[in-house]
C-alpha cells in the first residue's frame, strides 16, 4: 500500500476524510483501489500549488463531516461503504444548505480521484492498460485478458 500523506495543507481530520472519500470513489476489491495508488498524496500535492482548489477541498470535506454527523455517525470515515456512497451522491444533487458548494466539490473530488487513480500505473493495471511509450506492436492481435487479482 502507498504511504500515507505527510502533513500538509489539510489537518488530520480533513486528511482522514479525504482518504475515506478516495476509498469510496475507487474502493479496493479484487484489484487495488485509490489508497493503494496513493491518490490522497497526489491530491494533496496538487492542492499545495492550487490555493482555490484547497479552499474548495477544505470546505467540501467539512461539509461531508457535517452530513456524516447529521446521519448519526461520529465522522465520515466511521460510515460503512454504502453510507459513504449515499452521502457522496447526495452532494451531486446539492445536499444540505450549501447546494452550490456541494455540487462543485463533488464534481471536483470525483474528477480528481478518478483521474489520479486511472492515471497511475496501479490503476491502469486494473484494466490491463499500458501507456504507449514503447508502441503497440501487438495491435493486430486479439487482445490479452487483463491480469487477474494478485498477478
Amino acid at each position: 500500500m502507498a504511504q500515507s500523506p505527510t502533513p500538509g495543507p489539510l489537518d488530520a481530520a480533513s486528511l482522514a476524510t479525504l482518504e475515506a472519500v478516495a476509498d469510496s470513489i475507487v474502493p479496493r476489491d479484487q484489484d487495488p483501489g485509490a489508497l493503494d495508488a496513493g491518490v490522497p498524496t497526489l491530491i494533496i500535492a496538487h492542492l499545495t500549488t492550487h490555493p482555490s482548489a484547497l479552499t474548495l477541498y477544505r470546505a467540501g470535506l467539512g461539509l461531508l463531516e457535517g452530513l456524516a454527523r447529521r446521519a448519526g455517525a461520529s465522522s465520515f470515515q466511521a460510515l460503512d461503504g454504502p453510507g459513504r456512497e449515499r452521502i457522496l451522491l447526495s452532494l451531486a444533487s446539492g445536499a444540505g444548505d450549501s447546494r452550490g458548494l456541494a455540487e462543485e466539490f463533488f464534481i471536483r473530488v470525483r474528477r480528481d480521484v478518478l483521474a489520479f487513480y486511472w492515471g497511475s500505473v496501479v490503476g491502469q493495471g486494473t484494466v490491463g492498460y499500458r501507456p504507449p511509450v514503447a508502441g503497440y506492436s501487438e495491435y493486430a492481435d486479439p487482445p490479452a485478458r487483463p491480469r487477474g487479482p494478485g498477478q
Partner: protein
Amino acid sequence: MIAATKQEAFDAVVVGSGAGGGFAAMGLAEAGMRVLLLERGRSFEPARDFPMNHPDWELRPRAFRDTETPTGDASIVLEEGALLDQRYAHLASSSRPSEALKPRSRRAPFRYERVFGLGGTTLHYQGEAHRFPDHAFRPASLYGFGVDWPLSHGDLAPYYERAEHVLGVAGDPANPFKPPRGPFPTPAHRLSYASQRIAAGAAKLGWALLPNSLALPTRSVDGRRPCQRSGGCAQGCIFGAKSSVDLTAIRRAERTGRLQVETGSRVLALEMGHDGRVAGILYRRANSLYRARARVTVLAMGAVETPRLLLASRSASQPYGIANSSGLVGRFLLETLLSEVTVRFDERIDAYKGPPIDSRIWNFSRPSLDGSVRSGYVLGVSGTLGGFHGPISHALLLPGLGRAHKDAMRSHFGAVVTLFGIAEQEPRAGNRVTLADTKDSDGVPLVRIESAHSETDLLALDAMLARAKELARSSGAVEVLRQATTYDLPAATHVGGSCRMGTDPRASVVTAYGRSHDVQNLFIADASVLPGQGAGDSPSLSIQALALRTAEHIVTLARRREL
C-alpha cells in the same frame, strides 16, 4: 511602431508552415529559390514536448492546446450558429452514456481545430493521406453537385506521387474505389484487431473495410523511426514517426540551405504597391515589427486565417480586401460533415492500439444513384475519437462511483470504438468567413463564421449516422454509448473553400495554380483553394500536392520572367 524592413533578399515569402506552406516552401527551395517561411507558432521536439511518454498523459496539456481555439488566441467570434432544422432533431449529439438528447434551437459555436506551430495542423492530424477520387474533381458534371475543379485527378497525380514519397505514405494500391496506381512508398499497415472485427461486420453488409492510406510510414523514411502504432497521433507522435510537415518537407527544404524559418512570427497585413502587386509582408515577432519583401508571396494559413488576412488588408484603394475583385474571398466555406457513434462490444478489442484511423469504407464515395444522398462520403473506424481514448477519459465519461464504477471500467475499457462517416459539404456562397468589428491584441479584426447546412448536407449526415449504426450492429456491438454529429456540433477538422480555385475570375479567387486572379505575385497554397472536399476523403495530401504544383508553377513563371 515602425516596422524594420528585413535586408535579406528572398525570392518568396511563405506564410504558414502547415500542409500547404511546408510543401510550397520545399518545392520552391528545392528548385533553387531563396525562401522565408513565417510561422506564428513555435517548433516542437517530439521526445521532449509531447505528453504520451507519461502514464498520466491524459492529465497533461496537449503540446498544442493553448494554440487552438477556443482555448488559445481566438480568431473567431464565439457565438451560436445557424438555426437547427428540427426535422432532423434525431441527429442531435448526445455526449454521455445514457444522456437524454438535449433539444437546442441553434448550432453550437464553430470550432476551428487549427494548430499554431511549425508543421501546422499536421502536428495533430492522424496521418490520413488520401488521393481524392477521380469523380470528386467533377461533381457538378457527374452529379449536379457543387462545382467542377479547374483540374483533373490526372493533372494532380504526379504531385500526389511526389508528396506521398516525401511522407513515406503507407497504403495498399488494391483499392477498387480509387483510380489505378502504383505501389505506395511503404507497405500498408495490417488492420488493427478492432478494424478486423468491424471488417467482418462490414462484409456481412457487402461493404469493404480497407486499410487506410496513412502518412505513418511502415518502414524508416529519411532516417526516422517507422510508425510504432501508439495511437497517439493527435497528441503529437512521441517517436517522431508520424510524417508531420516539420519533420518531412521542411527538413528537406532546410537541407537546401535556401530556406529561412522564422517561428513566432505573426503576419498582420499585406502591403500593396502602386503597381498592384504585393510589396511587403508586415509581421510581428516578439515585440518587434518587421517588413519582409519578396518577388512572390504564398499564403498558407488555412481556410479561415488566409481569407481573414486578405479581407483585413483592405485599404482605400482595395476597400474589399486584397485579391477580392470577385467578392468571393471568404465565401463558399466548407466545414466538416461528420456523424459518429461510439459503441461498446462485450469483449476487449483494444481499439486504442494501432494507427488511430487505420481503415476506411469507400463504398459510398460516389453519390447515391437514386439521388437521395448527393454527397459522397466515407466511413471509418477510430479508437481515439469520441472522447474515449485512455483510462482517464473512460473513467470520467462513465457515471457513478464506487464498486459499480470500477466494474463499469472493467467492462468498458478496451471494448469501445467509434464508427464515423465524413461527407463532402455542398458549397454555398452564404457559408462564409467575414470580418467582425472586434479586433485581437494585434489589431487584426476577428472573424465571424456563417455556416448552415443545406438539405443535401442534412441528408448526408442522416445517411452516415444510419450507416454507422448499421455497421455497429452488424459487427456485434452491444451498446451505443454516444452519438455526435455536426448537425448541432460544428467541426472543422476538414475545412476549405474560402478562396476557391477556378478558371473564371468572376467565380473564383485563384487559378488552378493557386495564383490570384487579381494580384500577379500572390499565391495561395492551403485548404482555402479547394472547391470541394474529395467525397469525404481527408484533404491534407491534396493540399500538399496542390502546393507542389503551385511551387512548380511559380518557378516556371520566375524562369520566364513572368512573375
